[in-house]
């Protein structure tokens, strides 16, 4: 299984999808805030805000195709792109969402690799391989498979997930929110955060808005919490850390958590622990208070577009205070300025292989 690098393919797709989601989300947010709505009749007059919302919604429709094409490209290189886009479109049409898109991307990507390796054509037909044979055969075979076989359980799974999350009440929603929030805050935009993020984005497409709000809240808590802890007790931070915090805070307002990385790298256990705890509390409160966000990204600027924005601010505040409190209590006054080249962790390199 490890050889297949399933995770790498998913991360590649996510990396191509991120700018798309952020742009689409912000377009919807700006359009909504300026009183736009989705254009239903393009022959009738419409306003700029209407156009922005509509563009954002169109962009959201590209998520499954781009995910599928990204996965398939990662597996099969360039020939994977066109068939992958098709698989994403199928996923959209049968209601299998981004999960269906990803699955379609994996299947079509491996199928293309198999085709490339096994079909031998005469010299004169070699040009037809990438242009016609590979995309046509792979799209048809895996496409039909998606329509008639795989679509069924995926739609079932999507529906089950959506209705379960919609039905979450009280304690279970509290725990769900805590897990979402904790994951989103855990590694500051790293793979764990991306899993939570992907999950929330997928549910957003199904009209479940709570997880998205958890994610946004928990992504902002680490920079805010670290900043608050620094304001409360500046002595516990080195000059370098303070400089990093001054950059991390404005990034946090825009929901970019990555600014906390240099601070966490200096003192991983305390910072990650405090941020995860704060994120979990924030996420739990979001679910408990029924906060939802129709937009996947944008930080403070999209708070007015949320369901229950006051609840969002309360959750954000509570998580921030918890993160800051843990840091203020546990952080030690630095003995000396830490050198840039900090100590290395012991890693097991036995799986690192040199090829070629």
């Amino acid at each position: 299984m490890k050889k297949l690098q399933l995770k790498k393919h998913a991360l590649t797709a996510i990396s191509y999808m991120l700018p798309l989601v952020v742009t689409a989300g912000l377009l919807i947010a700006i359009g909504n805030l300026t009183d736009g709505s989705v254009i239903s009749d393009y022959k009738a007059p419409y306003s700029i805000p209407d156009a922005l919302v509509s563009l954002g919604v169109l962009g959201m429709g590209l998520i499954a195709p781009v995910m599928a094409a990204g996965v398939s490209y990662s597996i099969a290189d360039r020939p994977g792109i066109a068939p992958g886009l098709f698989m994403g479109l199928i996923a959209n049409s049968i209601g299998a969402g981004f999960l269906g898109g990803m699955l379609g991307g994996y299947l079509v990507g491996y199928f293309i690799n198999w085709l490339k390796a096994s079909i031998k054509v005469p010299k004169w037909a070699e040009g037809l391989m990438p242009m016609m044979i590979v995309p046509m055969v792979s799209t048809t075979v895996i496409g039909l498979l998606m329509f008639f076989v795989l679509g069924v359980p995926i739609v079932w799974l999507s529906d089950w997930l959506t209705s379960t999350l919609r039905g979450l009440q009280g304690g279970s929603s509290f725990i769900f929110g805590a897990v979402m929030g904790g994951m989103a805050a855990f590694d500051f935009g790293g793979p764990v955060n991306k899993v939570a993020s992907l999950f929330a984005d997928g549910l957003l497409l199904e009209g479940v808005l709570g997880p998205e709000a958890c994610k946004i809240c928990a992504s902002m808590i680490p920079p805010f919490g670290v900043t608050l802890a620094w304001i409360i007790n500046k002595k516990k931070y080195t000059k370098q850390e303070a400089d990093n915090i001054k950059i991390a805070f404005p990034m946090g307002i825009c929901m970019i958590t990555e600014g906390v990385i240099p601070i966490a790298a200096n003192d991983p256990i305390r910072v990650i622990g405090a941020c995860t705890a704060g994120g979990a509390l924030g996420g739990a409160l979001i679910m408990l208070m029924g906060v939802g966000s129709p937009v996947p990204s944008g930080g403070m600027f999209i708070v007015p577009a949320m369901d229950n924005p006051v609840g969002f601010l309360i959750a954000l505040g509570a998580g921030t205070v918890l993160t800051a409190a843990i840091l203020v209590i546990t952080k030690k006054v630095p003995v000396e300025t830490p050198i840039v080249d900090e100590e290395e962790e012991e890693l097991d390199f036995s799986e690192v292989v040199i090829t070629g």
Partner: protein
Amino acid sequence: MKIVGIAACTSGIAHTYIAKEKLLRAAESLGHEIHVETQGTIGTEDELQLDDIKNADVVIIAADIKVGGKERFKGKKIVEVPTHVVIKSPKGLINKIQQDLGL
């Protein structure tokens, strides 16, 4: 050793560049020559020069995602790791490679 490398992470705005810095610092402090290309969301930066690739003893690809332009490394020794490996232990990795290659 002469090293060339590529760094690329999922979001393409943070870990990519941290990984590059870590590799550069570690290699230089161990007395190796190194060039690292980043493939972030903004696109390829500090693209590797053909001469550097030709002279390199090893190619280190520190990436969580698929990187582009691997065909440039045909016939080269290649080591592929996730970005967290070079972020956590860049010197350890370089030393291990040096040992394995017997250079």
